[in-house]
């Protein structure tokens, strides 16, 4: 049972996603995914990470190609700026997740998108990571995302679109909720 409008095309295969929801509810083991990345230190604050395989649907899966990322810090932190900073990768992950959600929810709700852009900002006081003030946390004090959407929809419908996108976003959940993290020596 789908109510997708065949004339709306945001490039999201909603029928496949709904089919996956039904299929994975029937075989819950296949719904268990493990996402992975591996990282190699280069020099200074510069590291190189790759993403290629992940586990899910009951087996090992591969991306079409291996994706590579240089991670570093800017020159004003006495680094060489060989890549985006780790916190910027977090912003990229969050806004990418929310934008994918906007497209998927719009497709499901029969809203044709013409353009979607988003500006994301994370406010941080670096005295926290520098250990200069114990009352200041290391992470973001706040994150703001501002979407600009051109679509055949009312403002209320667009508000509902971004609200639902947050509700179903993995990275929004990761950023807004505590997560157990274990870091150990191999």
């Amino acid at each position, binding site marked *: 049972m789908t109510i997708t409008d065949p004339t709306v095309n945001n490039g999201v295969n909603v029928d496949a996603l709904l089919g996956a929801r039904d299929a994975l509810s029937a075989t*819950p083991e296949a719904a268990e995914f493990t996402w992975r990345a591996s990282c190699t230190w280069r020099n200074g604050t510069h590291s190189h990470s790759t993403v290629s395989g992940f586990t899910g649907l009951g087996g090992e899966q591969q991306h079409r190609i291996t994706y590579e990322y240089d991670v570093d810090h800017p020159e004003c932190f006495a680094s060489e700026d060989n890549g985006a900073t780790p916190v910027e990768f977090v912003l990229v992950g969050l806004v990418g997740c929310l934008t994918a959600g906007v497209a998927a929810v719009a497709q499901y709700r029969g809203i044709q998108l013409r353009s979607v852009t988003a500006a994301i900002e994370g406010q941080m006081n670096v005295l926290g990571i520098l250990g200069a003030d114990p009352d200041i946390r290391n992470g973001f004090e*706040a994150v703001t995302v501002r979407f600009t959407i051109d679509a055949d929809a009312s403002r*209320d419908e667009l*508000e*509902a679109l971004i*609200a*639902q996108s*947050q*509700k179903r976003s993995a990275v*929004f*959940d990761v*950023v*807004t*909720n*505590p997560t*157990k993290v274990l870091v150990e020596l191999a």
Partner: protein
Amino acid sequence: MIQTTAVIIGAGHAGLAMSRRLTERSIDHIVLERGEVANSWRTERWPSLRLLTPNWQTRLPGHAYGGDDPDGFMTAADVASTLTRYARFISAPVRAEATVQSVRVAPGGFQLRAGDDLFCARVVVVATGACNLPAIPAVAEGVPASVTTLSPLSYRDPDHLPDGEVLIVGASATGVQLATEIRRSGRPVTLSAGEHVRLPRSYRGRDIFWWLEATGLLAERYDQVDDLIRARHLPSPQLTGAPGGTFSDLNSLVTQGIRIVGRLGRIADGIAQFSGSLANICALADLKMNRFLTRADEFATASGLDRDLPPPHRFAPTRVDPRAPLQIDLTTGEITTVLWATGFRPDHSWLDIPVRDRTGRLHHDGGVVPGTPGLYVLGLPVLRTRASTYIHGATADTEALADHLQCFLSQRR
């Protein structure tokens, strides 16, 4: 061994309504009740609790509210006395103080054990309710031992709480009602709000349950709702049957001096951590409320009611305090009680029949349990329609299931 055609387990509103349906159909049956009629309303509800639904809506098969306050809301004690009168009125064959310990499939139907008595029946209707056990999340394990924890089933009134601040987890009807009652006792209260349903008590001069019924929303069938899992797990709306203003929402709690924080995510080393998603949770609730008010306005126009009603309007959005804390230390002694208003779940552990899914929930198709012919369930949220969640929903649900049950019995003869 006591032989009967049907056993109904539970003499609450659903079990009694089914008894009436079976009597109408001359189907011989017994209603087994662990305590007295309406036991949970007598013993497992806090005394100040009132129904969310108005008196006029509290209908059962062959029964309509006949009192002088149709727009009022029954207390738990009122519900208990109403159901006691109803049981007498329909001559329900109730066996009180008969706790069913097991139900198993036996030749020709089912065998039930209640104390020293064995019952043999061709059909069994489970009407033991949706709120037998508090649904307390796993994070509760992290609450320090120095803090008292309560569920709405064990809560009575503020006088029974330790002195100090209370953290209420959950923003359903239960959470907002208890927050107000406890705050009124003078204690500081913090409420942790996850996904919630915001509705005004009344809109354009009519009770919200009038609108929910008139627009057809409550009549939406379980096999037609867009997302059944979500519909069945929706928190109860932020309403109260107690006298008060238009809203029992988060804004009204803030006005009473109650602090609102996000959804409780984890308690690590005695520190409760709350989600930063509160703004979106509130935006979702506002959007959902406004979608329903739009549906109500469209219904009023289409039904020609606009002349008789005050004009449509919208309410101010939920205000979210940007300074709401993301964590609270539970070890300082300031918070002395955590109250888990995180919902309830039914207890079907005494069913010795493999009918539960991997999450422990009884698997059913509109109250008919597939794979176990002759087994039925009643009184669960959105069992057959959205009205099934409320007392009057049993009227249509028992009609449909009694028809199914009768058809099943006639096929077996």
